[in-house]
């Protein structure tokens, strides 16, 4: 069955796959995770703020994002952002937004919905005595969050946050719909060019699997360590 396969195509494509493809994938994953975490934490704080309107806005946003398939969001965003940009800036024609910027914004906004739920659970896991003690020392609400509540919430939720980032790492492959050369996109291009679809997609699967697996293993070790500290 494997007689006709030529695995040497992989070796020849390696520099392209990793220098171009994987670099893009990892950059997008890291920036989207960071942005999603910051934006998501802001959403979580809005939901827990006690101001009904803020909480409602954040709640609707989160529910909305979680009810849409990611591919669709990527697609729509890519086509809509130029027009939204035009409308906002009042330019005469749709502004041009690169595929990278567009996909990054999409992923940040999409992931923020998931990260916000994780951070919300994390914040709620902190006993009410902690913010009370911080307030009693004279810290303001913002200081209490920044120095006392969020660091603990982040730490408690770190395994879940990383797990979500692993999912994000896999999801970034969906940018292929924008013809972006991420890792899968690069593999796909080589596959089409050389007519080696099976080899390249097999290899791509192995790479995604390996990286995700190692990361998951790391998460489990991290969990064990955090359990000891607590």
């Amino acid at each position: 069955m494997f007689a006709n396969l030529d695995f040497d195509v992989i070796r020849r494509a390696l520099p392209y796959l990793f220098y171009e493809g994987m670099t893009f994938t990892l950059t997008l994953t890291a920036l989207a995770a960071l942005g999603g975490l910051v934006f998501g934490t802001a959403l979580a704080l809005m939901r827990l703020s006690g101001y009904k309107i803020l909480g409602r806005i954040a709640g609707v946003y989160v529910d909305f994002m979680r009810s849409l398939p990611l591919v669709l969001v990527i697609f729509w965003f890519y086509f809509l952002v130029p027009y939204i940009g035009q409308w906002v800036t009042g330019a005469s024609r749709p502004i041009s937004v690169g595929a990278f910027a567009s996909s990054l914004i999409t992923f940040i906004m999409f992931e923020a919905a998931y990260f916000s739920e994780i951070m919300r659970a994390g914040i709620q896991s902190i006993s009410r005595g902690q913010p009370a003690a911080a307030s009693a020392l004279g810290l303001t609400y913002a200081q209490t969050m920044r120095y006392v509540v969020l660091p603990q919430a982040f730490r408690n939720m770190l395994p879940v946050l990383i797990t979500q980032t692993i999912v994000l790492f896999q999801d970034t492959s969906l940018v292929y719909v924008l013809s972006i050369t991420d890792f899968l996109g690069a593999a796909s291009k080589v596959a089409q060019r050389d007519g080696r679809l099976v080899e390249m997609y097999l290899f791509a699967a192995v790479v995604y699997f390996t990286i995700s697996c190692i990361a998951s293993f790391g998460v489990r070790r991290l969990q064990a360590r955090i359990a000891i500290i607590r």
Partner: protein
Amino acid sequence: MIEISHVNKWYSPSFQVLTDCTTSVTKGEVVVVCGPSGSGKSTLIKCVNALEPFQSGDISVDGTKVNDPKTNLPKLRSRVGMVFQHFELFPHLKIIDNLCLAQQKVLDRSRDKAMAKGMQLLERVGLKEQAQKYPANLSGGQQQRVAIARALAMDPIVMLFDEPTSALDPEMVSEVLDVMVDLAHEGMTMMVVTHEMGFARKVANRVIFMDRGEIVEDAAKEDFFGKPRSDRAQKFLSKILSH
């Protein structure tokens, strides 16, 4: 120093936790608040630095009205030390950083100054060697002494204690009480919710007895332990002193 007048608090229209509480703590005075659980003692002391809101009445600390919306609460709270039943040290910070955080962020002290003050207070509560450890590595008694030091680092004008020994193993109660007794002897103004009647006998000037959200008895220590006027206080005393 603390003026509490006609304070009422409801959790819901049908559930009143505090009923017309009026009392005061003058400078240098040590006042012990006792009473059965659910009597509103903790709620009352938390109203003093506005950790708990209340619906009517007034509380002022050093002339500043706590329940005035214009009051800068963080500033007021930074001058009122508070010690909690469950210590509430910040578990992600080292002991010394627990003492430095508010000094640096609230009082704008330099890191060096805050560290010096922190170490001096840790030494005072006998925990200088633990400065670089995390709270989870300390015993309950040690954690509570750190919590007291953390409150003192802010140079408070009054200290509030909310059942500081209730969550401790019996053998650790005295190490915490010793620190509190020292503090009282130094002239610190203190309001202490506690069941430790030995502590009350030793250092309290006055004892307040609460039951069902009311201040039933507010008397000098000698009068309270000698002959409490109310039946409820008598019953309470006979119960907790009988063993």
